């Protein structure tokens, strides 16, 4: 909490900067910013500010520097899971929900320019109207900010559209912690954003530094991004979803790898029956168990698509590759969902846009959950799934019905592995056991080579404990971009 005199000075300056109606010091609202579903302990901010434009953001950053007040940028609505938006020492939560304009949709150069408050719920339908789509994560919540999802390098569903882990983020405008403004890649210039004619789709540079990478997975600790250009794709005119049932997770690598080498499929991922049933159950309290029992232990979902030209021919060629690959591997690719025929359309919807129901799918079976996610080579995903099974079996909650899924990334050269641990807050001992499992399993997985590339909360220690030279470099950069350390202090190695 700020000292009373600082607090009132900051409050006054903030209301001058953004208007009194755009700041809040309402106790209940402040309180709601201090906790989420993670294991991180937060503090109450002193204010929430709702900027509408860049000039206001710049003013907020100036005020924060002047008074040495922490700023925590928040762009998505709740529920939140990672602790990244919890203030560690009060300050100002900068809430971007009122900076929510889609600035440009460009079907020729296939990109969208968006403000931080634009959500998947906003952007996906807007793109569809223009014949475009987004390479998005699996069923993101509708109020999730597209900009921060991209900036945080969240795993997306179409590996063939990912050339490295930064996709689909292209360029950004940022106000660094120092208060200075910068634009990355081909948005950098020459000239101002108004006079620059470039479409701002070249992410690299300017010059010999990839500035956008330095901002990525930074949890808002390097700069505040005021707009981003993200890559969009042609909306398919024909799509066909295939299901490949698997007996065990070790089988997933071969078909996914073979398909992605050939760039055959669009959306693809492997889910265990717990997660698939969680996503598909009409009412989980009623039909989750039966659905889970009916589904194969693991299912690969793989979508083939045709675009604007000769789509049926394209799909036919891709289907042939897909069925041939599966046959050669002794697997079956089918268009009906094994064990739950009739739900195919629902699955297609799930991989095509945000989650629109309440509660968010990760909270469908319990009122809390912890998620362990990391990167690994696709070939090791099966190993980590097995390892997690052993870790759960040895834990204090061996019967926990956790869910797993694996999303191939970057042309299939890597994979996002996720384990969703449900936990009911009604039982304190259960909640404690699951929390313990979350922490100990994260450690054990990291020890075996799981890469916590986005080290939220306690994972920061796993990532930086034995990486002091890298952490020192990050601190040097932090000193350059945010010399007073006002941006989201206490996160990562800062």
């Amino acid at each position, binding site marked *: 909490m700020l000292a009373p005199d600082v607090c009132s000075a900051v409050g006054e300056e903030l209301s001058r900067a953004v208007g009194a109606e755009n700041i809040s010091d309402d106790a209940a609202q402040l309180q709601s910013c201090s906790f989420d579903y993670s294991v991180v302990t937060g503090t109450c901010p002193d204010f929430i500010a709702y900027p509408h434009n860049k000039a206001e953001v710049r003013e907020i950053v100036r005020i924060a520097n002047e008074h040495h007040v922490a700023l925590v940028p928040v762009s998505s609505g709740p529920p939140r899971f990672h602790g990244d938006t919890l203030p560690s020492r009060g300050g100002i939560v900068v809430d971007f929900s009122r900076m929510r304009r889609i600035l440009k949709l460009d079907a020729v150069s296939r990109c969208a320019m968006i403000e931080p408050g634009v959500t998947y719920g906003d952007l996906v339908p807007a793109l569809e109207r223009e014949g475009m789509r987004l390479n998005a994560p699996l069923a993101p919540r509708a109020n999730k900010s597209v900009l921060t999802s991209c900036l945080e*390098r969240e795993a997306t569903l179409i590996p063939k559209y990912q050339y490295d882990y930064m996709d689909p983020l292209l360029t950004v405008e940022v106000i660094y912690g120092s208060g200075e403004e910068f634009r990355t890649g081909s948005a950098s210039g020459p000239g101002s954003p108004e006079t620059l004619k470039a479409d701002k789709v070249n992410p690299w540079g300017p*010059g010999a530094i990839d500035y956008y990478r330095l901002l990525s997975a930074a949890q808002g600790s390097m700069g505040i991004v005021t707009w981003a250009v993200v890559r969009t794709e042609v909306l398919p005119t024909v799509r066909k979803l295939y299901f490949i049932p698997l007996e065990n997770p070790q089988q997933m690598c071969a078909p996914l790898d073979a398909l992605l080498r050939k760039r055959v499929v669009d959306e693809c991922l492997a889910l265990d029956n717990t997660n698939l049933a969680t996503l598909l159950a009409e009412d989980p309290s009623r039909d989750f168990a039966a659905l889970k029992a009916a589904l194969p232990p693991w299912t690969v979902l793989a979508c083939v698509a045709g675009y604007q030209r000769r789509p049926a021919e394209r799909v036919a060629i891709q289907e042939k590759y897909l069925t041939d690959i599966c046959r050669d591997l002794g697997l079956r690719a089918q268009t009906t969902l094994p064990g739950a025929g009739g739900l195919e359309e629902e699955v297609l919807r799930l991989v095509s846009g945000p989650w629109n129901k309440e509660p968010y799918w990760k909270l469908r079976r319990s009122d809390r959950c912890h998620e362990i996610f990391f*990167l690994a080579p696709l070939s090791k995903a099966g190993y980590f799934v097995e390892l997690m099974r052993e870790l759960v079996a040895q834990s204090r909650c061996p019967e926990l019905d956790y869910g797993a899924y694996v999303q191939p990334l970057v042309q299939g050269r890597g994979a996002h592995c996720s384990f969703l641990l449900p936990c009911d807050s009604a039982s304190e001992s259960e909640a404690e056991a699951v929390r313990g499992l979350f922490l100990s399993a994260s450690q054990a997985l990291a020890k075996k080579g799981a890469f916590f590339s986005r080290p939220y909360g306690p994972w920061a220690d796993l990532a930086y404990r034995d990486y002091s030279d890298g952490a020192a470099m990050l601190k040097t950069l932090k000193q350059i971009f945010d010399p007073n350390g006002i941006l989201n202090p206490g996160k990562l190695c800062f």
Partner: protein
Amino acid sequence: MSLPKQIYAELEQIVGAEYISDREYILAGLRHAMPSSPVKPLSPAAVLLPGTAEEVQQIVRVCNRHGLKFIPTVSSLIGFAYPTALNTIILQLKRMNRIVEINRTDRYAVIEPGVRHGQLRTELMKAGLSYPVAAVGPGGSVLVNFACSSGDNHNQHGASRTNRYILGVEWVLPSGEMVRLGSLANDAGWFCADGPGPSLRGLVKGYAGPFGGFGVITRIAIGLDEWRGPAELPTEGRSPDYKLRLSPDRHKVFIFKFPTLDRLRDAMIEIGKAEIGQAVLKYFNATAALLATQSANDFWELWESGLFQRELSRPLYVYLATHSAEETAYEEAVLREIVAETGGEEVDPAIRAIYENNMDFFILVGFLQRVLRLGGAWAPAKLSADSVHHMFEIGKAIPEFLEEFAAKRLIVDAPDNFQIISMEYGHLAHIELLFLWDRSMPAWGEIPMQVMARSHETEIRHGHHGSMPPRSMPMLGTLGPLYSNCHIWSEKIREAFGTGR
């Protein structure tokens, strides 16, 4: 100028007497900068050939102790590989040429700086794998192209620029410390470049690399794609008269010409949206003529015939590489549909035959050094990337500044000698304008500077992102403010981490 004895001895101790020299006749060979550069080359103080990353670290520390500068280099094909200050030593990395690992399952290769395209591509084809090779040719270093210099290549339509393919990185900082980036940082293997947290990979390379101005990269992993050709390239004849043709069932080359740049642009955009093709580019026409001929006389004969100006001023080169005859037929049908809609026509069959007979143009670019042959010099004026649409806007404005130089006969009259290469299925494209001039002209060293300055002026006037901010500090000082003050940020970073050069 050679090194003081005691420093020489310190360095000798690190690499051994065999791998260090300051003999005049050795250094003389390292004084030859590019013929295109009017700058009188300075001599390095010594040349060292380290064999390991540890040796590189030790050398860098000795350099820091004694205030020496160092330049890492492999094939030294570009000017940046040569000293620009006294007391500079050359770290010639050609001994560090191990292919450390080819991981067929996870599709990556771990390499040292001395590994050349010719060496790695050959090994990878046997494993059914490949990567996009820059047009520098088989002798260029793979690591340097991916992590330290540029990275554009003919195949980036169905793939990307090589900077996209960097995975784990092992880097000797200007301080001599060794840092590992990406998944390697946490002992999780080589597969990922970014993280943990904010990606330090951003310091290794942006649009271009730091060209040896920011420590030494001693190992990288690069991502690999599937190779759609045979395990060995089938050549007929002998260099330079060889042919390299791949099965037309799966590999096909087309060259179309278009009445306007707008039509050509529209075709490129549509091909991208249809996600067909491996290479899709508007290629240089004078460079194409240089590649198509075996001597300077042959070139002038061809150029003066006007054939390449007529047929290749607005060409679209398309190389299809697929997995089956059926897929090739599908891609060809889509391609022909697009070309018909946009008003393209096939070029003279003799020109198409050049590329059908030498498909290595799309694979290894075996004879690119022919572009250096004219005896004059060449330089790029434009070098950048953004959307296909924007690149063509830049292309259309080229005559605005180039014609006056051709009219004064300061450069070869080749206003269409620029390439626009589609990348990542037309999501973006790269532009490069090459101009050629005669070194026997008086004050020839001024010509490239003048052309580049006029090119910049045109870009600024139009708001065109036609060249990434240049590296030279005087130019950066003027242009940096127009590019988001990037010169200030890069300088702050350099100051914080040191440079080495």
